[in-house]
């Protein structure tokens, strides 16, 4: 087990009170594995990613409690200075906006080499490796690119530069926070393919934060679905796509276009995500869930209701909750994912 | 020019200015209450004790200025007696006296006072009560800052809106004009204008405003430009709403926060400028009484024996507290209205 996050809570001070952006998140990443965290914006997935490296915007945000075990040791025990040794070395990160994530006044080469120099490599080695990296991520004329400034490159090229910065010290885990969201569709595919190739070569694990189920199907081995600061479903990608268990996950799939539902209106999830400063008492999805009954609004569901291997945070799977329908309510409906499974050849 | 000068020298006009400012501000604030964004901002402002203190301080200064604006005019001598004058009616002293009589150096020692104990801040070289003179400065400060604001806000607003909204030709012209004006250093512009226009409140305010409308105009232009390309403005345009209506109904309300913050912060800068102009000998008339004049006259008194320092201290503190209050209020407003700008 490379990374194990247990009951992570990251809170923010806001004028309305304490916002519990990440509220008890647990998941794990095996060596060489790709885990995706998927959810709508505001569900806490990006904050989860930033929490791993303790880069939550201060002083408003802070990690309230939890454990982040990396190779068995808790990262939260480290001081800021000790944490610095991990960042960019064992764990590195790429971000959504390649436009603004690079410093505009330094050359690309300087910024790649900086990562290595920060971790004790000498200038000559750093320069040679920077050249090698730029070549590897598919930049033509790498020696010329070293001397270029970020604004002289296209968005896709900049994200390639970001990737070479992240890979400079051969990390064991790459955290990719929506790495393709800001890019054109064709470039998206190239970047994803590149990440996958590099992963195969180096054997690193990838934690991919995304809102795009298509990307999940393409690259992820396992998936955590997040809603309102919590993981609501955790499954191998194939399993999740074949049989989504949580009503929220089903809602996500139903809102995608699919061939077997041609001619029907796309389903939408009614309502909005509740306020993170005042989560509802019961299930956080209850207000938007068409299957919810009384208990859903009063009792908060646990993550392992029936002790199965596929944890789901939903009362429908909890035999101890009263008022539960005898069988899953959607068995009579059309399958929501058949097409996607086929398309992604899962 | 002459008739304008006479018009603005009228007590009625000069008194109308502070009242008008108060009325306009009150209207803007009450009007703004209806907007949800502002209601939230008020609540935040009310919870900030520093902001409340600043408002109270400004209120007290405003009250003094107001009390100094109402009074009676003597039929024969045409002298005006305001409420503040009435409150400080006491026998005229012959010489200086310190608030704590021993706190100065040099000769001659002060002679006995006619109304001992009534001069909170002592009396100056010619026996005038320092505290009374300080209070008289409040009205001048409000008139100068207020009138200048009344001049620059509409000019900056209208030109900024036109440049930002219509762009192209109008933008080029207006940008050229304000680039020209802003490349003349502000203090030099003020000096030149007062020399050319002559002394007087009206002239000083024009001189102060001539350099300052540029800042307002540039700000409004930038903000308008931002809003012009927003969806809601495009939607309104597509629906055939007239330009004037878009500007007044859609864009202007969105600019109100920026305008109010700028005006509040600008007020303090104007009060400070008045003092500098007085020092350069191109400020308000000595008979009107202003903090700038008090500070200016203090420089001679500090060079002489006995050293009369409380005149300077009293005026500086009065000015300092008012400016500090406006600065703090401006910052608090910015925090309350736009949490994104919070440091």
């Amino acid at each position, binding site marked *: 087990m490379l990374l194990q996050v247990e009951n992570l809570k990251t809170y923010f001070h806001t004028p309305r009170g304490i916002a519990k952006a990440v509220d008890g998140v647990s998941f794990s990443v095996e060596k060489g594995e790709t885990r995706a965290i998927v959810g709508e914006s505001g569900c806490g997935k990006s904050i989860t990613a930033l929490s791993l*490296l303790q*880069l939550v915007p*201060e*002083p408003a945000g802070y990690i309230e409690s939890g454990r982040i075990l990396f190779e068995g040791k808790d990262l939260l025990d480290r001081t800021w200075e000790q944490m610095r*040794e991990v*960042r*960019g*070395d064992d764990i*590195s*990160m790429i*971000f959504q*906006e390649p436009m*603004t*994530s*690079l*410093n*505009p*006044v*330094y050359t690309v080469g300087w910024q790649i080499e*900086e*990562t290595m120099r*920060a*971790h004790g490599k000498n200038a000559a080695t750093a320069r040679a490796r920077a050249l090698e990296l730029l070549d590897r991520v598919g930049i033509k004329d790498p020696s010329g690119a070293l001397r270029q400034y970020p*604004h002289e490159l296209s968005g896709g090229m900049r994200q390639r530069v970001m990737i070479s*910065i992240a890979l400079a010290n051969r990390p064991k885990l790459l955290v990719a926070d929506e790495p393709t969201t800001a890019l054109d569709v064709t470039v998206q595919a190239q970047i994803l393919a590149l990440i996958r190739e590099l992963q195969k070569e180096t054997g690193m694990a990838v934690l991919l934060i995304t809102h795009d189920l298509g990307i999940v199907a393409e690259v992820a081995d396992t998936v955590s679905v997040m809603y309102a600061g919590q993981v609501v479903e955790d499954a191998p990608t194939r399993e999740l796509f074949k049989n989504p268990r949580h009503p929220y996950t089903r809602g996500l799939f139903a809102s995608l276009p699919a061939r077997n539902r041609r001619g029907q209106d796309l389903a939408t999830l009614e309502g909005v995500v509740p306020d993170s400063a005042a989560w509802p008492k019961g299930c956080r999805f209850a207000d938007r869930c068409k299957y919810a009954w009384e208990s859903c609004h009063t009792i908060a569901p646990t993550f392992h209701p029936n002790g199965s291997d596929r944890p789901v945070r939903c009362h429908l799977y909890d035999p101890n909750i009263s008022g539960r329908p005898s069988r899953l309510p959607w068995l009579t409906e059309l399958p929501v994912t058949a097409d996607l499974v086929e398309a992604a050849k899962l | 020019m002459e008739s304008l000068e006479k018009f603005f020298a009228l007590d009625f006009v000069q008194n109308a200015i502070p009242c008008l400012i108060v009325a306009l501000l009150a209207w803007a604030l009450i009007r703004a209450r209806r907007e949800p964004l502002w209601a939230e901002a008020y609540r935040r402002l009310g919870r900030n004790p520093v902001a409340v203190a600043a408002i109270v301080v400004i209120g007290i200064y405003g009250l003094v200025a107001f009390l100094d604006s109402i009074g009676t005019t003597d039929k024969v001598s045409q002298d005006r007696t305001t409420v503040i004058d009435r409150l400080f009616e006491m026998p005229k002293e012959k010489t200086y006296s310190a608030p704590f009589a021993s706190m100065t150096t040099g000769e001659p020692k002060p002679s006995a006072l006619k109304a001992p104990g009534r001069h909170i801040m002592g009396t100056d070289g010619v026996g005038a009560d320092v505290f009374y003179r300080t209070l008289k400065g409040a009205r001048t400060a409000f008139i100068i800052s207020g009138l200048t604001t009344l001049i620059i806000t509409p000019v900056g607003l209208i030109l900024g809106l036109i440049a930002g909204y219509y762009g192209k030709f109008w933008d080029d012209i207006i940008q*050229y004009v304000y*680039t*020209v*004006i802003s*490349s*003349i*250093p502000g203090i*030099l*512009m003020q*000096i*030149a*204008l007062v*020399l*050319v*226009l002559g002394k007087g409140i009206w002239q000083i305010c024009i001189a102060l405003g001539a350099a300052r409308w540029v800042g307002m105009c540039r700000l409004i232009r930038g903000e308008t430009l931002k809003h012009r390309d927003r969806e809601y403005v495009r939607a309104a345009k597509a629906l055939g709403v007239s330009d004037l209506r878009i500007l007044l109904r859609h864009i202007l309300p969105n600019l109100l926060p920026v305008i109010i913050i700028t005006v509040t912060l600008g007020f303090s800068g104007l009060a*400070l400028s008045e*003092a*500098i102009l007085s*020092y*350069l000998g*191109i400020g308000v008339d000595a008979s009107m009484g202003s903090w700038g004049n008090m*500070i*200016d006259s*203090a*420089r001679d008194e*500090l060079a002489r024996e006995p050293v009369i*320092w409380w005149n*300077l201290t009293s005026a*500086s503190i009065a*000015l*300092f507290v008012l*400016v*500090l209050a406006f600065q*703090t209020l401006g910052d608090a407003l910015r925090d309350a209205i736009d949490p994104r700008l919070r*440091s």
Partner: protein
Amino acid sequence: MLSYILRRILYAIPILLGVLFVTHFLFFGISSPEVIARRNLSTRNPKPEQIKQWLTDHGYDKPASEQLKRSTIDMMSFNFGKSDTTGEDIWSRIKQGALPSLIVGGLVFLIGLAIALLTAIIAAYFRGTYVDAFITFFCVVLMSVVYIVYVIGLQFVLGKLLRLGPISGWDTGLGMLKFLALPVVIGVISGLGADIRLYRTFLLDETNQDYVRTARAKGVAEQWILFRHVLKNALMPVITSTVAAIPTLILGSLVLESFFGIPGLGNYLVDAINGQDFSVVRAMVFLGTLLTIVGLIFTDIAYALVDPRVRLE
């Protein structure tokens, strides 16, 4: 680079012409030579002949086209003419006064910039803590004191009570140093509040940028991020804001110079204001503007040196 500079200079020409027109309009449109003469003549109600005589003496009797030439071409060639009150050649007085003003202004500017930037960096490094809150509050207090109170009050306290330096005067060579101390200290203190606050805002704006997060994610040390990443980006707005100070470098701080008896341009201007000397004021307005425009050109060049995004073509 050369063509870039040339283009900047070309941009400046219409602005300079605009300023010349504005000043001409001020002195001949709003006011008139007659008004100037009336103010300058010592008698209370001057006779028309006296005014006429004054106008002839000071060269204001020429036709309008000649006046316009004086306001534009002569100004541009630094041919400012003679003072209205003393009859001295203005340009030679300006040349005399420039050096003392440049020394005082330059020292105030450089020392002030260094202290303000350093304090702002400290505030930015300790952002959100009591250190930062204290510095911010202190700045607002400093900003709320009117400039002349700094000058009058500090001269009184430092010079007269504590006797830390001579109250006023000037000397050439090394003897200048003792006369410089007080005005420079006072000049620096009076500008600190506003500058620190401004620079702190610039720095904090940059610390919230995405590239800072990237640098942290790379494991770069905080001090390195502040000095190498943030500072270099924040320098650009700092450069822009310091342009405003460039005319004051040479024109000198009016109040400071007249107060400490420094024979600089500021002092000259204050005398001109007191003497209602229009031609001197006009020359100084032009000079101040010219310096501002030159300052703007230098800003653009500095920008091009610091920011790779500025295109030189």
